[in-house]
């Protein structure tokens, strides 16, 4: 009975000290979600850690703004509802800023302006018009700007939608999909350089936000609309990284350019 009692006492001690720590740690740890199916921006490495451009950027922003951040992997479909519901404090996942999203979310300053491209078998030619892509299979991740764009622009194409950013590449490699649309940097750095990407290449126009409203203004960190304070701190952090060259260094590290 005695050792058990002692154990109970120890447990109480730990519990009570944990309770005391709570108010002492004044700074709340922010939960930041990313959909880690989108290398090189966000993915899971072999040890199970979230890594990538966005993850490093977010960590640097948090350090610069003196925020405590915990970046976690979350399913794409639950991210925006989760942010609105307050499960997450912010999202960093190459989220494009669009009018529809501005209505429900707050965004930090834009940190990148991606280019959107198609990828297909090398040598294949397509005419990127509604008639030209009629009946062609295009794979996209559901709910992304690419999904919105192909759905509106190529209604006669056979559009296949996936919940992750990586599944379309499997479909491209297997031949189930002829075309896939994504961020140019993602296609180049995560797919074309890999073993599976041999024999594939970029094609079609280089789309940006200027070509279609679906592509948005650029990518930014999404924050709950009510959390004006956090938008401010994140923007301060971003500004610091721009000033001290850390953002340029990160771009150079991942993409060899700035």
């Amino acid at each position, binding site marked *: 009975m005695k050792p058990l009692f002692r154990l109970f006492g120890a447990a109480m001690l730990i519990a009570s000290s944990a309770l005391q720590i709570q108010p002492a740690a004044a700074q709340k740890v922010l939960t930041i979600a990313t959909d880690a199916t989108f290398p090189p921006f966000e993915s899971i490495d072999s040890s199970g850690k979230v890594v990538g451009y966005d993850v490093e950027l977010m960590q640097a922003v948090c350090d610069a703004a003196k925020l405590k951040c915990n970046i976690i992997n979350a399913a794409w*479909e639950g991210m925006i*509802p989760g942010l609105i519901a307050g499960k997450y404090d912010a999202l960093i996942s190459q989220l494009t800023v669009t009018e529809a999203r501005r209505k429900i979310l707050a965004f930090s300053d834009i940190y990148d302006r991606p280019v959107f491209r198609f990828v297909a078998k090398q040598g294949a030619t397509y005419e990127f018009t509604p008639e030209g892509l009629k009946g062609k299979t295009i794979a996209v991740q*559901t*709910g992304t700007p690419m999904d919105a764009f192909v759905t509106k622009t190529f209604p006669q194409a056979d559009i296949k*939608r*996936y919940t992750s950013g990586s599944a379309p590449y499997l479909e491209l*490699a297997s031949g189930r999909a002829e075309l896939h649309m994504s961020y140019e940097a993602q296609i180049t750095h995560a797919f074309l350089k890999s073993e599976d990407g041999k024999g594939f290449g970029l094609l079609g126009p280089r789309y940006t936000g200027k070509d279609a409203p679906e592509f948005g203004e650029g990518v930014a960190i999404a924050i709950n609309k009510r959390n004006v304070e956090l938008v401010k701190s994140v923007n301060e952090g971003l500004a610091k990284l721009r000033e001290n060259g850390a953002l340029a260094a990160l771009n150079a590290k991942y993409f060899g350019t700035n």
Partner: protein
Amino acid sequence: MNWTIIADSLPLYAQGARLTVLLTVSALAIGFGLSLGLALLRNSPNPWIRLPIASYTLVFRGTPLLVQLFLIYFGLAQFGLLRQSILWPWLSSPLFCVLLTFVLNTTAYTTEIFAGGLRHLPPGEIEAARAYGMSPWTIARRILIPAMLSRSLTLYGNETIMMMHATSLASTVTLLEITGVARNITLTSYILFEPYVTAAAIYLCLTFILVGAFHMAERRWVDARG
């Protein structure tokens, strides 16, 4: 709460429900036919017949359905040899892959359910049938199959409900059944509660229909036998 989006999407849900019913009914119908035969052979005294069936049901009951679906849909597609084979037009279709997986999975469970029902059959019944001079085919048709089905009807009813709910996995390989429709609304309209509650309500209605059907079947075939 934003129910107008749901109201606008009701035609999509109707299409999704059609696909859910199609997948459930086809998987169960094919699985039922296969299981009848496999369950009889599962209890065969010949180990060369019995053991392969036992290993098949072990593998398909011992692994998650989602893993099986991914292996068949994404996994098989990685083999170049298969992609050039005559099977590829079939295996490249998500509908075919999903149905194949569901049939293999539900057949494994149903075979074991039916075979289990048969194991408790008093040996006297079969001996009596033999004494009457019935052929093995007649014994199967008149004694074994009716006994097997009436004994396992409740368990089999559960399996059909599980199968219907498992069709939600089809949405992971682009098929827009009920769950797929809900997920698409979530991803394009950023609401989660409303689309999934709607999906749950539809599944519940479909489950009621299944439960009702099995209730009637039990009254008709099981209670009557006493």
